[in-house]
Structures are given as C-alpha cells and as structure tokens.
C-alpha cells in the first residue's frame, strides 16, 4: 500500500505547494518563470544526455525480436513486419510499434483451469488504454501550441476541429459548464489513465511488479489533466495573460509582472515536475523505443555480417592440438590425419 499511497500524497503536496506559493506567498516569478525554465532545460539536456549515453554503448550482436517467418527460400513468404529482412521492413515495423503499439495487440491472458490445464484468451485492453492515453496526450500537447507559438500553427485549429467535433456543451444552473465545448481527448485521457491506474492496483500480477515510481507519473499526469480541465471548464483563467506569460518566456525576457489564476500555476508546476522528472525515469521509454536494438535491427544476420567493435581475441583449441591429443586413437579407426 505504501508504494500506492505515498506518491499520491506527494503529488497532492506538490499541487498545494504551487497553490499556496502563488496565492499565499505571491511567488509568481518562481512558479511562473524560474521553475518552468529550469524544468524545460533539464528535460532537453537530460533527454539528449540519456540518448547519447545509450548511443555510447555499441550493439555487439544483431539480435532483433524475431516474431515471424524470416526471409529464407524464395517460395516461402517472409513476414517483413515481424522478422524484417532489411531497412524497409524495419522502418515499417518501427512505425507500427511507435504509433500503434503493435506488439501489445497480440497480448493475451493466461489462466489455469481444473485439469490442470492452461487457457489463453486475447486481451487487448492494455493496448487500447495505452494507445488512447498516448494519442490523447500527444494531441493535447499539440493543441497547446496555441499558447506556445506566437503565430498559431496550422495544425492547432485542425486538431481542435476534430477533437471538439461533437461540440458537447451542457448547462447547469449552479455552474454553467458550457463553453468551451468538450474536447474528446480531455475525457479519453482521463478514462485511459483511470483504467491504467486501476489495472496496476487490481491485477495482482501488475500490482506485484509495480514500484512507487510507476504510480508517481500516473498521479502526476492525472494531476496535469485534472488541473488543465478545471482551468478550461470550471475555474476559468485569463488565457491571454497565460499566453503573454509563455510568450515572454520563449522570447527570453520573462515578464514577472503577470499573474494568472493559481490553478494555472498548479498546472504549470505539475508540468514542470514531469519535464524535470522525465529524463531520470522510466518515461525515457519514449526515446528508448527508437534505440532498442531488438526493434531497429533487421533479422538478416546470415546474409549480412554484423560487426562487433570489441570482438575479443580468444585462444581456441585448434585442430592441431586436438589431433596431437588423440592421434593414436584416430589412427586406430582410420581417421585421416594431418601429421602421421
């Protein structure tokens, strides 16, 4: 339980710190300027450093994940996606892995029934939840370019049109949660995160393997989503002031006079924490998936020699030594010899 609750308390504390720090202590410069700068710089430098640290280790052997028929005899159909024979197959496989999590699609669940006997059923829930979460995250991030970029890029209105396609608005007497209309991704990411969290807690196997650091980013991202949604739908803030602040940051003359609502600083502090935490954590799987030798190599080891830069020189037991030891016995059964 400790590993489930502690990070939750931690994230709540972080939120309170940002709220109190701005609304109570007026530390707008700290939460609006210093921490975001620091976090973004840490993210860029840390991410680059981590990728380079992987790149500094060579790939001694060509050991791709082999999950289908390799290219062999001409009349046997090779499976270029599961066992690529060259660059096109590798790229296609990589694309489908990165954008559609293809390997998770074959996930199954095993259970033991009376007999004993094992049965397997297809289980695509992790695939679906993972896909929905990551795509929603990406779309939400891209939508934020209306804040990040002074001239709003073409894709933002496009994404908004699709994401807000159903124009779901509703009205209630107490609190008119009506405008702007609901973004599908805002709802989907909440559902997906909730599923991923419940899965971690309720599936005994996954709970067993989960560490404190598996819950922390879940809570943190949930915090980001909740504060972001609150800001959009309920606890409204002045969007123009927020964009002015961000623009002052990206143009490198931070405007310390700007004060947006505290919920904005909680949101920003969560995001800063995530950016800061990212390069030091499992979240680096985002870069790692591209660097994974099992993913980015072709299964063509017998057709094309792979070079190991540190291939050691090993003293082998030569045939000559072998014959030396067994010459008489070999001679007795008529085996040909190098030296009589």
């Amino acid at each position, binding site marked *: 339980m400790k590993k489930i609750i502690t990070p939750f308390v931690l994230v709540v504390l972080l939120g309170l710190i940002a709220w109190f720090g701005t609304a109570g202590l007026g530390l707008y410069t700290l939460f609006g300027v210093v921490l975001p700068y620091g976090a973004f710089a840490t993210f860029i430098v840390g991410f680059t450093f981590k990728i380079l640290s992987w*790149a*500094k280790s060579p790939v001694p052997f060509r050991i791709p994940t082999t999950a289908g028929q390799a290219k062999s005899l001409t009349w046997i159909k090779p499976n270029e996606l599961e066992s690529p024979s060259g660059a096109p197959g590798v790229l296609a496989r990589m694309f489908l892995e990165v954008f559609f999590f293809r390997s998770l699609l074959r996930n199954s669940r095993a259970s033991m029934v009376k007999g004993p006997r094992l049965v397997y059923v297809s289980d695509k829930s992790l695939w679906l939840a993972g896909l929905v979460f990551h795509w929603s995250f990406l779309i939400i991030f891209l939508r934020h370019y209306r804040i*990040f970029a002074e001239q709003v890029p073409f894709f933002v209105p496009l994404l908004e049109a699709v994401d807000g396609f159903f124009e779901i608005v509703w009205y209630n007497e107490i609190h*008119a949660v009506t405008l702007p209309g609901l973004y599908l991704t805002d709802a989907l990411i909440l559902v997906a995160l909730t599923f991923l969290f419940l899965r971690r807690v309720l599936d005994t196997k996954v709970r067993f393997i989960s560490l404190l650091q598996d819950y922390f980013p879940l809570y943190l991202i949930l915090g980001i989503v909740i504060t972001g949604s609150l800001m959009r739908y309920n606890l409204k803030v002045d969007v123009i002031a927020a964009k002015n602040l*961000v623009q002052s940051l990206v143009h490198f003359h931070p405007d310390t006079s700007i004060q947006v609502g505290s919920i904005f600083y909680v949101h920003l502090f969560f995001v800063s924490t995530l950016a800061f935490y990212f390069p030091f954590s499992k979240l680096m799987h985002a870069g790692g998936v591209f660097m994974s030798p099992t993913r980015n190599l072709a299964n063509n080891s017998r057709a094309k020699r792979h070079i190991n830069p540190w291939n050691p020189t090993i003293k082998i037991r030569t045939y000559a030594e072998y014959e030396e030891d067994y010459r008489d016995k070999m001679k007795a059964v008529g085996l040909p010899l190098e030296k009589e």
Partner: protein
Amino acid sequence: MIYNAKVVLPILILFVVVLTYPFWQGGTEQRPEPQKPAKAAQCVEDAAWMRANHMQLLDRWRHEVVRKQERSYTSTRGQVFEKSLVNTCLDCHQKSDFCDKCHAYASVKLVCFNCHLNPELVEP
C-alpha cells in the same frame, strides 16, 4: 564514442529543434490590444473577471433568455443589464477591434456570430 552516430544524431537534433520551436520561432511578442470602449467606463462585471469568464456568462444569458424568457441581468455591483449580445455587449464593443483581437491571438473560435448577425456587416 557515439555508435551509429549517422542515424542517432540527426534524429536527436531534429527532435530538439522541433521541441524548441517556440523559442526560435521569431515574432515580435506582439500582445493583443483590444480597444477600450468610449461609451462606458465599466463592463457588466469587473474587467478581470470578464476576461476569464465572458464566454460562460454569454452562454448562460443565452439559455436564460431562450429557454426561460429571463431578460434582465443584475450584476454583482447591482446594476441591471439586458441579457443581449447585440444590444448590450456590442453596444460598446465592436467585433473587429475587440473580440477578434484576443480570439485571433489565442486561436479561439468565436461562435457567437454563428447565429447572431454582426451589426458591423453592411448589407449589400
């Protein structure tokens, strides 16, 4: 030594360049300056509140007028206004030099005029 540098480095650089786009996008950091109306010194509610909440106020007005026939709005300061985009809001503000300024800056779709006629439009 960086192995596979020919593949790793270009992709890494591309990633960093794309991610830092807001920092090198250029631009003059032009902030929107909606025109202050001459007619009145005070909006229906406090200006700061209006900046964050006007869309919800307008939508509430819409519901109350269309569904309940409630046409008058008493502000927190006790002033009474007609719940009307055209007669109240646009009496002081103009779409082109007020609404559009911020809406363009933050790329937020302005939906009021999907139904309402913009009085600035000159009929041919």
